Structures are given as C-alpha cells and as structure tokens.
C-alpha cells in the first residue's frame, strides 16, 4: 500500500512538473477517430465485458455518451481496463482521455493528483449487510456484533469511527483480501459484513443463499463516484462535465431514448434549446455542433435509464435509487441549467 502511495505521488509530481499535457484533447480525439476511456477491469454493473465481448455497464455508458457527443458514434471508444494503482498515471500520461472507473472524488485527487472531476455519477457509501434471521433493522442494534472487514482499508477506519462516535463496541474480523472477507461472512464467522453499498449488492449474489441477507439502511461514509479528466484542458473538462449534466437533465425533463425525437418538437424552450433545436447556442458555446446533447441521450438514454439498465431494482444487483434519485424525488442528482 505504501509503495502504491509513493508511486502515485511520484507520478503525480512528474505529471505536474514536467510534462504539461497537451490542452488539445478534443482535437486529438477527433484526429484519432476514437476516445480512449479508462474503465475498471470488472465491477459488477459498472464495467464488464458482456457475453459478446463488448464492454457494458454504468461507467461504460459515460464513455459512450461522450464519444457520441464528440465523435457522433457511441461505439468509437477504446476501453482501457485499469487497476486501482494504474488509473491515475494512465490519465496523467495521456494514455486515456478520460477515466470513468468507480473513482471517489476527494480533495487529494482533485488537487495533488492533478485531476478534474465531472459531476458525480453515483453516490456510493459504506453500508452494512446482516443475516435476515438476526432480525436487525438498524446499525444502532449492532452493539457488540462481530464485523467482517478488509484490513487496512478506509472501510475499516470508517467502521471504527462510526462505532466510536455512537458509543458502541464491536469485534472486527480482518482479512487482507475482499474475497476472504466475503467467504468468512458467508461461513458465518461474523454477524455483519461491511463494504461499499454497490459492492455489497454484487457480493450478496455470490453467497450460498442470497435471500438470507439484507442490507441495513444506514450509509456511514461518502463515496461519490465521478468521471475524471486531467488538469489543463478546460474545454475537454467542460465537454465531459456537461455530457453528464445532459444525461441527468434529460431525466428531469422526461427525455428518453425513445421519445427524444418527439421532444425535439416540445413546447418547452429549455428542452428544444438543450437538444439543439432552431437557433440553439449549445453547440457554439461548448465548441461542438448543436446536436451533441441529442446524440448523447439518443445513444445511451437518460440518467435514470442508464441506472435502471445496469444497477437498478430490475437488475440482479437490485440497487435502489436512494441518494442517486433526482433532486425532485429527494435525491442528490441535480443538473445545472442548459442556458
């Protein structure tokens, strides 16, 4: 872990000092004809190769939306699967144009590592899973419980902080690797399993009997997962940022992949302006053509559609919208106006 920290810091330092990475990402992508997008090598629902060998998932859709906006083709993407340690150097060295890889936005990454984060695509956080038979429905009832957790992770720190702050005690059972933690919980060595909620949802399915386990409602940490670009290219940052906003705004306006053509003729000037109707300035302002929002939405659908397709209640992961609902439904997803 220490080695990784040193490596990334050294990498960041070099990226900041010497190589002023070209500010012409848009031109480079256009010239190249495809977008280089960094994704995770396999996180259920977020990015995975499907049976046909195409990348699919929640994170992958962001790459597709940007490619549709910039290159008029959502399939003009080359995916670079990146490990945890590699992801930032790959971005800094110019190997990828954007990173869409379950990455938490933090002060350190935003500043010292030289990244710019687009709006949050997924509000994740640490949650708890227990056996249904325990008849527990809140973390406050877990005083004295045995908890399975990854050793040396932020998960472990959050757990300690939370229990201490609430005046409760617990017995941690620590393991180095995530699958060991899972196996121990599945083998009934602890009462509680704690990890990020999206991860818990996926791991519940690989337990011997998924229906035995329930998630508790509390979320005890902030893990806002957002796409990132590197410092130094404001136009490219704007494009990625506003592509994400476009997906969220589309849901708020009720624009879907299916009805987008009818929406072009909408009475609402906000909708027609965003979709690049007559006299719309959205293309000119951002340095693309007027149809960029239209293409992004018609290629991948609005935010809600993406959520439902990959991680929502109808998928095996069965993640509720929760914090990821629109602000109008009591969630945190709030797009800035396209004006």
């Amino acid at each position, binding site marked *: 872990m220490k080695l990784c920290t040193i490596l990334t810091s050294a990498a960041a330092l070099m990226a900041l000092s010497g190589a002023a990475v070209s500010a012409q990402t848009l031109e480079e992508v256009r010239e190249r004809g495809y977008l280089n997008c960094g994704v995770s090598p396999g996180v*259920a629902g977020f990015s995975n*190769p499907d049976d046909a060998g195409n990348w699919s998932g929640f994170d992958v859709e962001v790459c597709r939306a940007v490619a549709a906006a910039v290159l008029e083709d959502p399939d003009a993407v080359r995916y670079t*699967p990146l*490990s945890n340690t590699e992801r930032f150097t*790959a971005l*800094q060295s*110019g190997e990828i144009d954007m990173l869409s890889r379950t990455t938490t936005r933090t002060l350190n990454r935003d500043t010292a590592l030289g990244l710019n984060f687009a709006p949050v695509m997924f509000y994740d956080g640490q949650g708890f899973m227990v056996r249904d038979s325990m008849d527990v429905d809140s973390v406050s009832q877990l005083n004295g419980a045995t908890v399975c957790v990854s050793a040396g992770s932020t998960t472990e720190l959050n757990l300690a902080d939370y229990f201490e702050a609430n005046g409760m005690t617990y017995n941690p059972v620590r393991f180095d690797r995530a699958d060991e933690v899972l196996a121990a919980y599945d083998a009934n060595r602890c009462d509680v399993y704690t990890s990020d909620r999206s991860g818990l949802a996926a791991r519940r399915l690989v337990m011997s009997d998924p229906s035995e386990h329930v998630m508790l409602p509390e979320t005890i940490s902030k893990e806002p997962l957002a796409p990132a670009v590197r410092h130094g290219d404001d136009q490219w940052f704007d494009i990625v940022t506003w592509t994400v906003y476009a997906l969220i705004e589309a849901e708020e306006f009720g624009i879907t992949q299916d009805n987008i053509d009818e929406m072009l003729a909408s009475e609402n000037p906000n909708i027609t302006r965003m979709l690049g109707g007559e006299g719309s300035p959205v293309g000119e302002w951002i340095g693309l053509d007027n149809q960029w929002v239209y293409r992004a939405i018609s290629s991948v659908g609005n935010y809600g559609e993406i959520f439902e397709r990959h991680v929502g209640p109808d998928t095996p992961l069965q993640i509720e919208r929760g914090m990821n609902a629109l602000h109008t439904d009591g969630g945190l997803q709030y797009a800035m106006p396209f004006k």
Partner: protein
Amino acid sequence: MTETSRHLPLRTPGSVLGPAAWIRRNLFPDWRQGLLTLLVLWLLIRTIPPLIDWLFIDAAWTGDRDDCVAAGGACWAFVGARWGQFIYGFYPPEHRWRVDLSMLALLASIAVLFLPRVPNKGWIITGSFIALPVVTVVLLHGGMLGLEVVPTDRWGGFMLTLVVAVAGMLGALPIGILMALGRRSRMPAIRIFCVTFIELFRAVPLITILFMASVMLPLFMPQGFTMDKLLRALIGVALFNGALMAEVIRGGLQAIPRGQFEAATASGMGYWKMMTFIILPQALRTVIPGLVNTYVAIIKDTTLVLIIGLFDLLGIVQAGISSSNWLAPSVTTTGYVFAGFGFWVLCFGLSRYSMHLERKLNTGQKK
C-alpha cells in the same frame, strides 16, 4: 532337487496369484499399510462422488444464471456462453481465424522438434523459431499483407496467455544464454554489465517490473511517444526471465569439464565456434530440467499481467464472473476450475514434452 523344480509350476498356490493376492500383497501387506489403504479409500469415497456430481450430474450445461443457480452444480453454461471470449479475448470474431492460424504455427514449430533425423535439422529448427514470432506478429497484429490491424487491447484470454508465455520463453532463452556467457567473460565491462543486469532483475519481483513498465515508463517517455502496453509487458517478462535463465544456464556451463574447452581451443576453434558447437549443446542439455522449470514458471507468471489491466485467461474469467448477469457462487467456482484446467493443460503438456526431449537427447549418457 530335480524333483522339486519339476513340481514347482504345479504347486503354485492360489494365494500368490490373482486379484485377491495382488490386493493383499500391495494394499494390505501389514496392519499399518492396511490402515492407510482404508483411510485413502475412505477419502476417495468421500471426495470423488460429490466431485463427479458437481462437475457433471448436477451441472447446468445450457441456459443462463438462473438455470445455474437452480442446478446447484457447476455452471458450464457460463463457460459455453463465454467460450469465444475465454479463448480469443476481444479479438473480432471475423478475424479469429488469424489466431487459429498462429496457434497452428506454434504447434507446427513444436512438431518440427519431433522430426526424425533429417539433413539440416538444426537449421530447420532455428529457422522455424525465428520465423514463428514474425509470422505470429504479422497474423495477430495485422497491418501488412492486406490484413486489418487488430490493436493489442483486443487481445485476451487463452491467446494472450500463450502470446505472453511464448514471447517470454523465446525472448528469455537468447537473453539468458548471452548473459550467462557474459557473466563468465574475461572482459570486465561485459562481465560487470551482465552481473548487474542479472542481479538487478533477479532480485526484483516480476510485479514490480510490470508496474515499472506500465505505470512509470510512460511518464519518462517524451510527450506523444506511446509504446504499446502489451509490448512493454512482454519486454519486461522477457528481461526478467532472461535473468533467471542466465543463472540456470551458467550452472550448465560450469558443469562442462575444463578439458572440453581446452580440446576445442586446441583444435583451433574460436570463442563463438567453441561455444556454439561444443560447449552450449552440452551445457543446455544438462540443464533441461532447470530450463523447463523456468518455462513452467513463465506460463504461470503470465497471470500477473492482470494487474496492469491485460486480460489473460485468468483475467478474462475473473471479468466474466463479476459481470452482473452471471453473479452466482457456482459461476465463480466454475470459472476458476476452468482457468485452472487451462493452465494445467499448458504446464502438464510442457513438462511431458521436456521429458520426451530429455530422453531423446540423453541417449548414451544415461547413468
């Protein structure tokens, strides 16, 4: 005396022949051995039938995740659905014949080694092993002879495992030979360089080298200069294993008696002639087990490319078992069993092949 020997065949007691006697002689010669036999038998009865149940009888052969969960056994449907991906990675289906052809080329150059004595066999072997990488690169990567370019990020699965392993093996052997010779050289510059190289690469874990190649190297490169990620990894694997191999080969060189060097020099041979025709053939033959050991380790080390985001056989299986439409315990186990079997086939094949090679080359030297 004569009477006894004449009667002997007739008197052979039933208790030393036949299956019952065999069992008694081999499985129950005394009570301790008998106890062990019973213990092993009990273990086999406890493990084999459930394994067969899981692997075949309760297995789901077709269908999707729900069928696998319902079946309770292995989920071969998952392997079936992703078979193409496991073998070819993301290689475009319409170009997969190029991968097949390269695998055939690999098999052909291995088959060449099995040839009976034909004239110029040495040259045929050397030629085929020089031609193999060229043919493979042209076929797999394309961009020449009217073949469409398939970038290396589309490579994966079993095919990538083979590419990394074969490149590691073919690259490591010449590096190893040169470094081993260099380490024994009388020229200080060459000797110091070789010792430094060997000690440096041998003392560092392969993971570190791969990390350097994939994470740090791009930052030292001039802006705009990009080198293929797979190529960087291949060079790293070849250098690392070259250093290991150098020491194996040096062991062989030291086993050659001084008389061989002196005799070669006395018959007027120069350094390279002596090494090529007298010393190395003997030295390499001596260290075949060590070489094969390194080769088997190379095959197994290929899985480390996973950490730099390349999908070898294990990597692509892991990506598959974590995709949301296949999340189930039986899928996870089946995936790992399949990957393990793939590697076993490769490594076992290699070790059988090396035994064959040893038998063939050791004629007249058996002790």
